[in-house]
């Protein structure tokens, strides 16, 4: 019923035209709004009216301008950081310990025998180029098969344009004419320089013959990597060759060839409690062979440490048995260790530190955490699920990290371009590691990929850092260990425990003591919080509006109401105008049209309004005829006349 009534009323309204004019509406609004300016406009005298009008306009525009700034600020998603420092019970970091040397030389000797003989002979040739032949005659003939894939050459750059290239074993001089020699910033300025280069050749994946021919004719297939130092060249060459050899060995075998936990970890003490090699999780790391992780938190809960100081940390005694190092592979001797978060993969090449043999290394740890807000505040990832790179390290069950992403990205590229995976990184399913037999050109492919800046940039762009970044800041100090006085008994006991022998099987060169403990202040957390929240935005908006105009949301609603009203008036006006057109046509027939109801109403109400609108002076003139009873002009009654008149007009 109400609805019907409403519609009827609306219909009448449409027929009769507006009850108000725009001016009335505006004046009513100004008088009754809760914002502070408008009221003054209508209340003051003409000069002040103008000033107030101007002021109100100015304030309104100020409010809108500043609202714009505030919203912009909000949308820029700024953050503020807060820092907290102190000591609390924290998870002890996972500690990964490796030997700098990946395999026991005694175990891999049979695989590397040929290579070692080759390199020894090559070194012989390099160091004494004239006497080289005599030593070779005594030894069994060398297998030059490996050699021809990647020969070591001497590049004589006396003449800049035509460097002379001397293959160490072939002793015939090639004048290198043109071609793509990659001389990395190596253009000699002062002549007289002999560079040692190792040549990586891109084989055409056909035969060995092609390889040897490469240096003679296929200059377009060859690049020379230049080294200014023979030591570097030899090491790089050896690494390339040995990777190729070792990549063919199955994983189980490689683990067996590496250092075993019981041989490496001689003693372990965590806090006051003894631990042993069984508390360590074995992981195969391509760079360092078998690595052992303490407190990785994969199977059991991570250990907490609630006390600062060396007494309550992890104490380890390691044996790296330096005598069993592969001589050409790694020249630095020591243990490699790294502190990292639970369930994360240890990237020792990046974050690892060395511990020197014959010393006690004390590492005070400070956990430096950075907790960041994700999108849209910063471009970081919570768990790596939104990164477009397939994480190959997920096979270790480890969490996402930027290093894992970069390496996975590189490996994916490598597989795409070279057709095989690099030995240092994990493999996706169905792909094999590169080796010289199956992929003769892999070394060339790899080195070009490695030095390509654009490929690296692609990986950098596609990987995102993690939002929660934990760094372990270490204060490293060293002392000689064991001391000369205690050396004897320590070696005796450790040898006995390990080998059950009374002979001393250990020495200074192999033994390392490690203390890892929390410092007095063990954490420093930088956490981000949004500088601008929605609450902040609202209160700032409100503050601005209130400051300039004393307004609130209700004022906005009022304003909206007025707009709706004025729309309504417009509609009614348009309709009445259309009616007027019709009537004009009708006027041809009836020249003297009777006044419409709306006109009557207007005439009636106008009187009342004008008294208020135009202020004081008109009123003086308007009043006198009827001083006693002016028509009631209550606000609340304003709608009423329409209603009252409604039935009358209907009756008409």
């Amino acid at each position, binding site marked *: 019923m109400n609805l019907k009534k409403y519609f009827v009323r609306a219909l009448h309204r449409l027929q009769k035209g507006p009850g108000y004019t725009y001016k009335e509406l505006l004046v009513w609004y100004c*008088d009754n709004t809760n914002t502070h300016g408008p009221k003054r406009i209508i209340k003051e005298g003409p000069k002040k009216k103008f000033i107030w009008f101007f002021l109100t306009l100015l*304030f309104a525009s100020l409010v809108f301008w500043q609202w714009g700034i505030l919203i912009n600020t909000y949308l820029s998603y700024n953050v503020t950081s807060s820092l907290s420092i102190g000591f609390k019970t924290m998870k002890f970091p996972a500690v990964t310990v490796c030997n700098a040397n990946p395999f026991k030389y005694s175990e891999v000797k049979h695989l590397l025998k040929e290579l070692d003989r080759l390199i020894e002979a090559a070194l012989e040739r390099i160091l004494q180029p004239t006497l080289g032949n005599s030593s070779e005659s005594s030894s069994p003939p060398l297998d030059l098969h490996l050699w021809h894939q990647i020969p070591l050459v001497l590049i004589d750059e006396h003449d800049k344009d035509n460097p002379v290239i001397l293959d160490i074993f072939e002793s015939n001089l090639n004048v290198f004419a043109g071609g793509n020699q990659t001389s990395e910033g190596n253009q000699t300025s002062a002549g007289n320089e002999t560079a040692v280069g190792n040549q990586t050749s891109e084989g055409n994946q056909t035969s060995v013959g092609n390889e040897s021919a490469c240096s003679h004719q296929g200059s377009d297939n060859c690049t020379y990597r230049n080294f200014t130092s023979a030591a570097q060249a030899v090491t790089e060459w050896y690494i390339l060759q040995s990777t190729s050899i070792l990549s063919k060995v199955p994983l189980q075998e490689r683990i067996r060839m590496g250092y075993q936990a019981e041989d490496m970890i001689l003693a372990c003490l965590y806090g006051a409690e003894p631990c042993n090699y069984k508390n360590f999780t074995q992981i195969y790391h391509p760079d360092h062979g078998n690595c052992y992780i303490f407190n990785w938190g994969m199977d059991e809960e991570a250990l907490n440490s609630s006390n600062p100081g060396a007494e309550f940390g992890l104490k380890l005694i390691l044996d790296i048995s330096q005598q069993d190092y592969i001589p050409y592979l790694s020249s630095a001797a020591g243990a490699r260790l790294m502190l990292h978060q639970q369930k994360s993969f240890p990237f020792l090449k990046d974050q690892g530190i060395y511990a020197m043999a014959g010393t006690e290394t004390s590492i005070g740890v400070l956990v430096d955490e950075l907790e960041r807000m994700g999108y849209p505040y910063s471009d970081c990832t919570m768990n790596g699920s939104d990164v477009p790179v397939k994480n190959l390290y997920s096979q270790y069950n480890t969490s996402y990290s930027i290093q894992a992403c970069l390496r996975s990205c590189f490996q994916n590229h490598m597989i795409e371009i070279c057709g095989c995976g690099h030995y240092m990184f994990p493999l996706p399913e169905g792909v094999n590691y590169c080796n010289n037999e199956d992929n003769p050109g892999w070394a060339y492919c790899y080195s070009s990929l490695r030095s390509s800046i654009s490929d690296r940039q692609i990986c950098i762009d596609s990987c995102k850092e993690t939002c929660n*970044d934990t760094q372990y800041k270490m204060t490293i100090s060293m002392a000689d260990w064991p001391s000369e006085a205690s050396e004897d008994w320590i070696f005796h006991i450790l040898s006995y425990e390990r080998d059950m022998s009374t002979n001393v099987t250990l020495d200074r060169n192999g033994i390392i003591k490690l203390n890892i403990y929390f410092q007095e202040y063990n954490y420093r957390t930088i956490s981000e919080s949004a500088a601008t929240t929605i609450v902040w935005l609202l209160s700032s908006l409100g503050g601005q509006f209130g400051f300039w105009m004393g307004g609130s949301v209700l004022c906005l609603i009022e304003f909206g109401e007025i707009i709706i009203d004025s729309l309504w008036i417009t509609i009614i006006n348009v309709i009445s105008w259309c009616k007027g057109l019709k009537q004009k046509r009708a006027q041809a027939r009836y020249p003297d049209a009777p006044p419409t109801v709306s006109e009557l109403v207007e005439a009636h109400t106008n009187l009342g309004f004008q008294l208020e609108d135009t202020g004081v002076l008109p009123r003086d003139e308007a009043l006198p005829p009827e001083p006693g009873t002016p028509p009631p002009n209550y606000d609340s009654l304003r709608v009423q006349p329409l209603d009252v008149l409604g039935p009358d007009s209907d009756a008409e």
Partner: protein
Amino acid sequence: AAAAPGKKITARIKRTLPVRGPQAPTLSELMRWYCLNTNTHGCRRIVVSRGRLRRFLWILLTLGAVGLILWQCAELLVNYYSASVSVTVQFQKLPFPAVTICNINPYKYSSMKDYLSELDKETKKALETFYGFSEGKSKVRRSVDEWNSTGSDFFEQIPLLKFEDFSKTATDLRSGQKRKIEGNVFHKDSSIVNSGDSNDIIGFQLCDANNSSECAIYTFSSGVNAIQEWYKLHYMNIMAQIPLETKEKLSYSADDLLLTCFFDGLSCDKRHFTRFHHPLHGNCYTFNSGENGTILSTSTGGSEYGLQVVLYIGEADYNPFLVTSTGAKIIVHDQNEYPFIEDIGTEIETAAATSIGMHFTRSRKLSKPYSDCTETGADIPVENLYNKSYSLQICLHSCFQKAMVDSCGCAQYAQPLPAGAEYCNYKKNPNWMYCYYRLHEKFVKEQLGCQQICKDACSFKEWALTTSIAQWPSTVSEDWMLRVLSWDKGQKINKKLNKTDLANLMVFYKDLNERFISENPANTLVILLSNFGGQLGLWMSCSVVCVIEIVEVFFIDSLSIVMRRQWQKAKKWWNNRKRDRAGKAPQAGDLERQGHDNPVCIDEDLPTFNTALRLPLPQDSPLPRTPPPNYSTLRLEAAFTEQLPDTLEVGQR
């Protein structure tokens, strides 16, 4: 007909009240008008409330709210210049820093023989006489003879003394004479001297050359320090006289120092290094100094992709008195920064591989008015002697050097020369050492004012280093490594290298995360204004409009009312005087006055309207026929008239 008197009165009022707006005749009326019509809450309550307690409470509350607003806004203003810190981590290709590498020993001892033989001889002799130490008997005996014959300059200049128990007597080490000590005694080693210690205290005496009674004695608890310090003074004297080109030749060349170099997986050589002559460390070599315009960058972290160098240290060629440790010193710095090797270098051990992992942090502070730091150093009255970008260190050193030139007349050897000055040596400035020590003492005690003048730099880059050491070369690889490196070193040196002559250094980025710590202004003007608005709105629902109202009412209107009153008083007085003179009472002025202070007229908010409406009433008929319509705008009036007696009393007084 009724309109005529109304109009008349209006016109008269208009004439007498030139001010528009609240045409209140008195201040209290104005206040009342203000309270009733203002947009702020609270004021109105004061007027509207009935009962004294309630009114008093409302006055209290309103004043409290005003006080709170003022207090909070003051807080906001005071805290306007505060900064919030934000930490951003960006993973990106990072520029590799400049790495400056120096041998700890500045100059090859063998080539310095010509310059230092005298000094060394005397130092050895001093050692022998004091401590009975000698290297080779025959050599010493020969030199003893020389000693006597030459008569050493060095001991004349700065005598080494042995003190006995602080009894103010000392034995001159050369002549064996005892002498009384005058002057100040400075203790270099510690401020607490164990006088009861059986150890003799050794030191040297520096005297003002112009005034020999002015002497300062520097004592050391250990002869090791004393001899070194003494040697260094003479050494600086000698070095100050040698021109730079010669010194560069005397020091290590790039070929000498660098055996192998490997960067980002590629081989590099001495052309990637820039020579940089450091006064105390001789020739240093800076990798990636950016001198040729390109700065290398790394796009991969990890030890393989950083800088790897093998350094030749050449322990045999060390100066035995100047440096007592072996190795190299490195410093990681920005290309624009001056490497202060002596201050913040990291030492590298021989026969070891030192791996240095870097973590890059960039910080930026807000300059004035947020904090007292300087962006470029241009606003600091100390000339930057170093040809590098500003840092606190540079400022302090420059400041000291300037003070040195000003007070001693020559420049200290360890720092660059200011324009028009030259290095101190005691041929030209016999007094400089004394002067230098006094000045240094002052500098350390912050009496030179350098620490006050110099400010922090606003932005700085920092590479946090994690240093660890491994044995290198390993026992099994030692043999071939040394052979190949000897071959690398070239044909010049035919001997096989010793592993204690070598140091392996790896400098790499641990990760490519750049941590950028920056301060941002916590407040902007917009935020400040909205906070003001929030405060004003919370306590009083006030806005700028209210502030303008307050200004309007309390200043302009009140002033005009006061002025008007004064004017009318003056007028009245003038009229009275005139009347007294003329003996005739002017009626108009009185009438006007009455019209104003007439209670019927006064109580209106809008006087024009009300006077028009009301004034005719008392004239026409005492009883109004119809009550005036109850317009919403007039509703205030109702409360007003009821209040009338109270306020009127106040108003009339």
